[in-house]
């Protein structure tokens, strides 16, 4: 029995203990999966499970009050742990169906490979490839070549927290020291180069706030300073300065909280590498506090605590 069948069977079993189960179904075309909210067991037949199921569904959890089941991958499970650290969800009200994951697909990367053609059909072969059919022919792509960047250094392919595990746990085969390799490389650039890089990227921002709204850890919700007049920190002008300000505040608010799920970057319609900013801050958090987000429910985010004597912050030493 494959994973999809096992997930279906598990979901059928957890009803009626839960009122809703959040999983995936086919989106508007063969290249897209979309969240699927199941409220009666019979709906389960439309569930899909394949590497297109990239979205971090846990973002919906804090706003759902009833008892809910949810399908999570290893990376998604870190969000749940972070929620637990911050008291944003009630563990007793979530039934977690964990699915070990060997890597998902970045639709943006596939579209680049197929020249943004409409897809006619998509299939997955047994050798870790996605085969995309368009009017202009067929393209076979290794999933490893079209996965989101986060998959290339994934440390937690198996969910860190779950109630039901589908299939066998998978151990990571990616070196831990590579996780922030891209950040270290970027850090090597000069200040001017970095500035020029971000100016070029943020210039495209249309302030649609998809990155913010898709972010599981953005909890200010409807009180975000991007739109409030009190405080009036950001104007509604479309200047680079305002865009910069918004993205910096977004990143700063996620210091020691970002679970690196990459949703902000996945959803950006303007293709801005916004996750990189947050990853940079996480690299600093790791360095300063030896803290990794979303791995231990008993941890406290460093910015939620205060020690007069921080071991690695010199300024605090009086």
């Amino acid at each position, binding site marked *: 029995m494959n994973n999809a069948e096992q997930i279906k069977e598990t979901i059928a079993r957890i009803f009626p203990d839960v009122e809703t189960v959040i999983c995936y179904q086919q989106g*508007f075309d063969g290249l897209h999966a979309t969240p699927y909210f199941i*409220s009666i067991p019979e709906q389960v037949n439309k569930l899909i499970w394949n590497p297109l199921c990239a979205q971090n569904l846990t973002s919906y959890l804090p706003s759902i009050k009833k008892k809910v089941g949810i399908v999570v991958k290893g990376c998604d499970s870190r969000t749940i742990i972070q929620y637990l650290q911050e008291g944003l969800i009630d563990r007793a009200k979530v039934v977690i169906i964990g699915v070990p994951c060997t890597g998902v697909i970045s639709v943006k990367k596939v579209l680049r490979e197929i020249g*943004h053609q409409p897809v006619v059909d998509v299939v997955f072969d047994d050798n870790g490839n996605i085969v995309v059919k368009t*009017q202009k022919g067929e393209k076979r792509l290794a999933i490893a070549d079209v996965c989101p960047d986060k998959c290339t250094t994934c440390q937690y392919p198996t969910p860190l927290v779950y109630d039901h595990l589908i299939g066998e746990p998978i151990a990571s085969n990616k070196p831990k020291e590579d996780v922030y390799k891209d950040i270290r490389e970027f850090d090597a650039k000069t200040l001017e180069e970095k500035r020029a890089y971000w100016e070029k990227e943020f210039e495209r921002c249309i302030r649609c706030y998809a990155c913010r709204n898709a972010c599981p850890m953005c909890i200010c919700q409807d009180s975000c300073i991007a739109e409030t007049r009190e405080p009036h920190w950001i104007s*509604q002008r479309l200047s680079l300065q305002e865009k910069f300000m918004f993205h910096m505040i977004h990143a700063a608010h996620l210091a020691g909280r970002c679970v690196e799920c990459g949703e902000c970057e996945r959803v950006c319609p*303007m293709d801005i590498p916004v996750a990189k900013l947050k990853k940079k801050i996480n690299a600093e958090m790791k360095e300063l506090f030896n803290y990794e987000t979303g791995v231990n429910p008993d941890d406290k985010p460093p910015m939620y605590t205060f020690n007069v004597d921080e071991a690695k912050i010199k300024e605090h030493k009086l």
Partner: protein
Amino acid sequence: MSDTGYLPKEKIKDFLKELAKDAVVYAPCLEGDIVLFRPFSEERTLCLDRPANTPPKSVIYPQSETLFAFQYKKAPEDHQKMSVELKADIGVPNMVIFGARPCDAKGFRIYDRVFIETNTPDPYYRKRRENTLIVTLSCAAPSPGCFCVAVGGGPAHKEGSDVMMTELEGGYVIEPVTEKGRAILGKHVIEDGKPYLKDAQHVQAKAHDEVRNPFAPDELPKISQSLFNFDGFWEQVVGKCVSCGACTYLCPTCYCFNITDEQGIGSGERVRSWDACMFFHFTLEASGHNPRPTKFQRFKNRVGHKFIYYPEKYEGVIACCGCGRCIRYCPVNVDISEIVNYLKDTHQELHWASSRKEGTQPTVGSTKDE
């Protein structure tokens, strides 16, 4: 002079340069992996083989613009008092939008009715609209998610365009749509297009047949009011919406805006900027009351605006041009064509109503494989 022109592919840059002599030419340019309308220059890479990620609406209706500047000054007669000076400047250069798609151009017609064809025309929009020539490229093939033929448009629909170009192997056939567009035929890189017109029409007809129509063919969708007003329907179909502004900001027909004062010391500007009906803040009142506090109500308003309210005001015209951008770029794949399809189908209505009675939730997506 012939009524049809022809632009050989190798002369396209010369053509753009000629246009740029007396206008700012906005053309779809490749930036990384995406295509954006940018003021064209030699260094840019023109990309005409797929619609731009964003429509060219910001050329005529900028995402943010100054309505007027204000300055406080000490009143000459009484230095205890301040006087205010207002300055509105609506200077706009001549502009060309080159390579818009027919859906993009049709979007401007949706705006014209609201911004110009009213007793209080909007001088900012109007001036830009008047100063802009729209040179549209017909679509040779559909793009993911698009459905123009279902909402009164088509891959070579001419409404809103000044010129329609159709791509053939060696060049573009150029058909003027308006008087303003006719001047294009006088540009000296333009050749006689008459011999190619039949081929162009063939390309257009073929493309028309390829675009999907999610609704009943040959008629515009009619929305069932009872289902539209059933909250449970919206809760089910847009439960996954994250309430961001991607759909509205990428939409060639969305035009809601905000007006804010952005101040310096003693002076500042009143700024008009795009706003999105998907945002909680959009309708939030100072008292804390919000007439559309949930994403369901906000999404319902968006669909209502396009498929019910606007048609009610403007002789049945649907304020959606079917470009498919809101579907393609939605973070969570909300599909407006699927939602409207549910809303128009009376069978669906029965389906939803009966599931409501039984206290169960109907299956979203049920039309997909049935």
